[in-house]
């Protein structure tokens, strides 16, 4: 099934909200999933996986905490949405030196934030982890991955730094085709944001009756 990027963004945003994130991070999740899909990555799968991984836990414990040049979550695995927003919020700090992130879930989700950081500080930002090397700049993305590359799941170490190389490819996809199971997973999370249908809500909430024969 093919989805528009708007559908991806809207569903991803609602899903993240349903997964317990505030609206600010839910919006970021929507944009991040869309960005990944526009570059041909399975952004829906990465997000669905994050939401399932952290479902029900105290999200606060999945924030990056920085110490001795490295970022770790205070408990267990780091959330890439929180790590990502912190990377772009503190983008100027990249000028002082590279970052090392430890134990991050779904590192693909860091890329859209590296791209945001690159736009904010007008420099190219490199992100690398096991088998993967990505450079983001305002002109696009330069991506290389070898046979050992791990695209999904938890990676032990991610490096983020300023790069001299240039991103060379703009987005190439105008649609997304996630697996049905992935999309259903996102829809299930999104569903948590809908209020249950009640007779009262149906009669009063919309300001119109239920038939229009005038």
């Amino acid at each position: 099934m093919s989805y528009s990027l708007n559908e991806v963004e809207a569903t991803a945003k609602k899903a993240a909200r349903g997964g317990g994130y505030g609206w600010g991070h839910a919006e970021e999740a929507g944009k991040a999933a869309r960005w990944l899909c526009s570059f041909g990555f399975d952004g829906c799968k990465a997000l669905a996986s994050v939401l399932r991984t952290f479902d029900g836990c105290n999200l606060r414990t999945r924030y990056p905490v920085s110490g001795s040049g490295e970022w770790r979550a205070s408990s267990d695995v780091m959330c890439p949405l929180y790590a990502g927003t912190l990377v772009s919020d503190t983008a100027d700090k990249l000028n002082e030196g590279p970052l090392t992130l430890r134990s991050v879930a779904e590192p693909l989700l860091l890329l859209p934030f590296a791209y945001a950081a690159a736009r904010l500080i007008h420099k190219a930002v490199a992100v690398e982890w096991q088998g993967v090397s990505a450079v983001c700049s305002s002109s696009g993305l330069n991506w290389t991955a070898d046979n050992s590359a791990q695209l999904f799941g938890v990676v032990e170490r991610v490096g983020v730094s300023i790069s001299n190389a240039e991103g060379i490819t703009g987005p190439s996809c105008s649609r997304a085709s996630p697996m049905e199971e992935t999309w259903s997973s996102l829809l299930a999370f999104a569903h948590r944001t809908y209020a249950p249908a009640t007779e009262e809500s149906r009669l009063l909430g919309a300001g119109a009756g239920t038939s229009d024969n005038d």
Partner: protein
Amino acid sequence: MGQHRTIPLREPSKVMRLSRLGSLHQCRLSFMRTLTRRMARENWVFARPVFKIDNKGVGYAVYTAKAPEHTYSLVAFAHDLPDELRSDRVIAEAWDSTFALFDGIPTPDDIDRLSRNVPYQEAGRISEKELSLSRANRSVRLWAHVVEALSRGRQPDPDMIDSVGYLMRTTAVYGSGKFGAADRDVIANRSEMHAPFQAEMLSVYLTRTFVRDLVQHMANVAGGNKAVSLDPDIARKLGIGNSTGLGMAPYIINHPVIFNNWIQARETAIARVREVETPTGEERDMFLDLLRRSDVSVSNWHSEHPIQIRKLNDLKGDLKAIFDCMATFDLSSDYPWDRLMGWADSSLTEEGQELIASLILEPYPDLVDELSDTMSDSNTDAFLINGAMPVGDVRSLIQASFGWALPIDWENPENCSRVWYVSEEKLEPRLGERFEEDLDCFEQPLAPARDVTAAYKALEQYDDRCSVAEFLMNHPEHRHTIRRIQISVFAPYSEIMDNTISDKVLPIDMLRSKLSFFGAIHFDPRSDRWVRICMYAGAPYPEELTHLNADRWVYPELPA
């Protein structure tokens, strides 16, 4: 010769109040007129290659619109809808007619695919080849009357036409990637799609043509040889209605940059015209002519809702005052439009003030029309949060754009009694009573003023020199709000300066503000959160469209 006067744009604190936004009138920047002017200017070619409707009024039709570089096709399906199923609500599951706007000319396979999806609307899927999905229901009374009259060899009663204004009304027009349609990005670079909502406006324009053809067809079926053709002058008076509810209200809050661009374009146009020192005779005459024609339009504007009745009385009172004023007002020199706006400010209600603001733009296509290029949002960086911004700057921004909200007691039930939410029932947007229903955890982020006040409080613990990044690290719950505050730096008209969750909020004000930019007229609220409008009433049909009638069709002819 004095120095040329520069007129500043009107202040956001004046313009962005809901009661004023709820009093906006269409103007030459409206999306419908931007489209009709272009179609005439570029000599678009229209055709109806398919019309396969049976004697029960069931079947499909295809209408094509050929622009210089692209062709668009409306694929229209007509259904036999039982009366008891007819509803304008999002929760409806069947309609009198359903539509898709196809990007190009559909093949038989496309039509087949669309026939299996479009009639089901949200329950079906469309593809990247489709730009919009919509549906329409009959105005039952007027439909029956027109079919009967024509079938018996008579024209329909002009009073009935005037009182309803449309044979069918759309109840949703979805674009921008919804239900699988092409994203706006796919078409945004096409010159004919650059202005906002052009695909949707084209869809409605062609829908109107289909509706005229369909009612004629049904009359022909009923009357055979006795049936007559609908008089083109009567046909032209008919618009396409629209039934708009809460689904549209969040748009102006959820798209702050876009809404800012619309308002800013209109305010810029107004300021440019106010800077005209000496209008020509032609320009003055045009203004006066359209003022009279607006008066005719207002006399055809009906509603039974108490709020609208009051506003119409205000508007009619304003029109009387305007005509009295025009008897002695000097429009010939000394910045007359500026003086007129100043007079309107102190003498008219907001309805009359905004009518004048729209009307003074009419004689100046060269000053105004190019501003429609500024009304879309292509600034994707607007979404990026600048974490390096000092907290002191954020505080100042809040005081500038939301200073009015800070003293409000947001805990007081009157001030937060409403809650915006989405029902799991067909994802219909609704507005609930916070203290009577258990909806808090489902609340949509549609109360920026309340949220900004909460953020401002949290910011009190932070020194001016701390960074936004530091604040957000500790308060991720305010990320959404900080983003909006940073947007207000470059988008002064991005925020409604009113409480959107108070017990007094009127969502119809939000609906009217957006619909006025579409070019809608004859706003007819059915409740405080549901409104009927009319689109394209008075517009030439495709075969009649010329550069002479493509622009000011929205103003009815003066009676002979």
